[in-house]
């Protein structure tokens, strides 16, 4: 088995999920210059909702794709409502307050979501019902499972759709205009509040898909999973250049690969001093390194105020 190729594939799969979640961070930041701290928890809620529906329908005899789709759509709908509500309740009233204020409410919201999830779904790990295809195929000595393929294809299609949505449709044009200047966009007849709400809804729906995919990949969901996932996705957004959609996609894929290669090789590189249990450190190291060396990110423009 080719280890390098295997780690690359694993990294790309995980990275495509990071990219989906990172898109939510980057869209919100692009418009509001706010780090939506609760985004990771929205991802978690998405995974939990999807798993709840799928577990419920698993024994009903419905065909598997319909069960999975029902779970996914429920999660997307639930998270969209949640994202909209969070923006209305916790962020909109503070739009002109000092920057610390919305950040603190964001932390508050994520604590609330986490603990609500714990109260509803319990402290235990929830496992994905055994509905997913178990097959795999061989690519030059590396093993690609069906689930990995599904994740890659889904994430790829979604990214293409979003990219075209933002670049080609009138909604996308309105979003870009609002990101550049809400006041001027308002003068052109764009309702900035409307666009901001839509951005939250779109980002949250993507996060729900990301949560669903990641729980399908690991076969698990947990009320605490959103924290680390959100942090990694945020690192990915910063790596690519926050506010930049293609940057978030690139950053997500890169971070996944870095993490996977790092965890795979750190043991032999350091002669066993550090092991793969340091995997989670890589995201933070990448984040700190990017912020020091190139705060605008790989694809971001170097604006002085940004970092």
């Amino acid at each position, binding site marked *: 088995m080719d280890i390098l190729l295997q780690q690359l594939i694993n990294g790309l799969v995980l990275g495509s999920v990071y990219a989906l979640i990172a898109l939510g961070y980057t869209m919100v930041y692009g418009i509001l210059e706010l780090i939506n701290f609760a985004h990771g928890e929205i991802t978690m809620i998405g995974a939990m909702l999807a798993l709840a529906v799928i577990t419920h329908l698993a024994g009903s005899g419905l065909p598997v794709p319909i069960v999975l789709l029902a779970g996914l759509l429920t999660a997307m709908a639930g998270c969209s409502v949640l994202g909209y509500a969070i923006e209305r309740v916790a962020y909109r009233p503070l739009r*002109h307050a000092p*920057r610390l204020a919305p950040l*603190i409410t964001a932390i508050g919201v994520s604590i609330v979501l986490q603990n609500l999830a714990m109260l509803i779904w319990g402290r235990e790990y929830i496992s994905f019902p055994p509905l997913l295809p178990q097959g795999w195929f061989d690519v030059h000595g590396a093993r690609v499972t069906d689930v990995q393929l599904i994740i890659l294809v889904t994430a790829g299609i979604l990214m293409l759709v979003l990219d075209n949505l933002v670049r080609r449709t009138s909604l996308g044009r309105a979003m870009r205009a609002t990101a550049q200047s809400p006041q001027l966009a308002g003068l052109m007849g764009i309702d900035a509040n409307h666009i901001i709400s839509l951005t939250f809804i779109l980002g949250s729906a993507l996060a729900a898909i990301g949560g669903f995919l990641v729980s399908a990949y690991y076969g698990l969901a947990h009320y605490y999973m959103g924290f680390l996932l959100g942090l990694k996705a945020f690192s990915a957004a910063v790596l690519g250049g926050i506010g930049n959609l293609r940057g978030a996609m690139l950053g997500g894929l890169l971070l996944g690969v870095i993490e996977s290669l790092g965890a795979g090789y750190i043991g032999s590189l350091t002669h066993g001093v550090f092991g793969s249990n340091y995997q989670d450190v890589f995201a933070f190291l990448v984040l700190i390194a990017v912020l020091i060396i190139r705060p605008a990110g790989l694809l971001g423009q170097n604006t002085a105020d940004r970092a």
Partner: protein
Amino acid sequence: MSHSRRSAWSTYAALAIGLLALPFLLQAGIGRSWVRIIDMALLYSMLALGLNIVVGYAGLLDLGYIAFYAVGAYVYALLDSPQFGLHWPLWAVLPIGAACAGLSGVLLGAPTLRLRGDYLAIVTLGFGEIIRIFLNNLNEPVNITNGPQGICLIDSVHLGTFSFSHNHTTMLPGLTGPVQYYYLFLALTLLVMFIALRLQDSRVGRAWAAIREDELAAAASGIHLRNFKLLAFAMGATFGGLAGGLFAGFQGFVSPESFNLMESVMILCMIVLGGMGNVYGVVLGAITLTVLPEALRMLGDWQLNHLGHVIVDPNDLRMLIFGLALVAMMLIRPAGLIRSRRHQREYAGDRP
């Protein structure tokens, strides 16, 4: 002497007597465990005052503050436990712990100086997690931190042959370990409060306020941004390290789990709730948020006694309530319970 000054003195005297008698009253009144709770409240007050320097004074949002607490605690634990067979005296261990924490504050501060607001928050959060991951994993190949099991059998806080954990009931009835810790922590908390108050209106404190309110204007007025930000990080971290060392000695046991992100957030909550930048507010916030969960625990007992079973477990609700309180506080009273006058102006004046 004017009348008002005399009445102020009598208020202070009453307050002092009340504070001195408090542990005995608690012991006699609602039970011994409450003295320990108050001890923890004082430790958290020190921590919150340290973080208040960084967040409240200098306006740098630090979400990994608990890492400095961890550094202080682990330095104490390593130098005063069977882990390496070292048993150093307190006067050496506490300053070393505080200095190590201060140094890590500078190490964190230096690369992140250019970042502001939310970026800084995320990086410090990452830093806190990195420290925790290292504490969790540094048990191999060389066992330093003993990994997730943590370090136990740590020496109690001791001065010469006087150990704060041993009862001295023969000297004075009721002088138990927690009561002695209470006096030690009270003295140190008052010292930290004094330093924090003096800092606030000093040249350094005013420089921090200027940086917080407008970095550009501060720099234009000749304030050296880098040095003053580093100073804020270092001072905040030093207080955190001090509290961490005391925590290790008080608890006799440290493990990485005591230093997770939620602890950082909790300390931030204390500051936000009490009133960012206001020393008395911060202490009030710290005491409220330490005592409240314990009081909520009594609510669980009450349910058990009067309703026969626990309907809602207060432990589960604790963090939920904190989260809601954070959001509500920011929306309704963003400057906290006891507002700092300067902060209040800032929060009121910024709205267009």
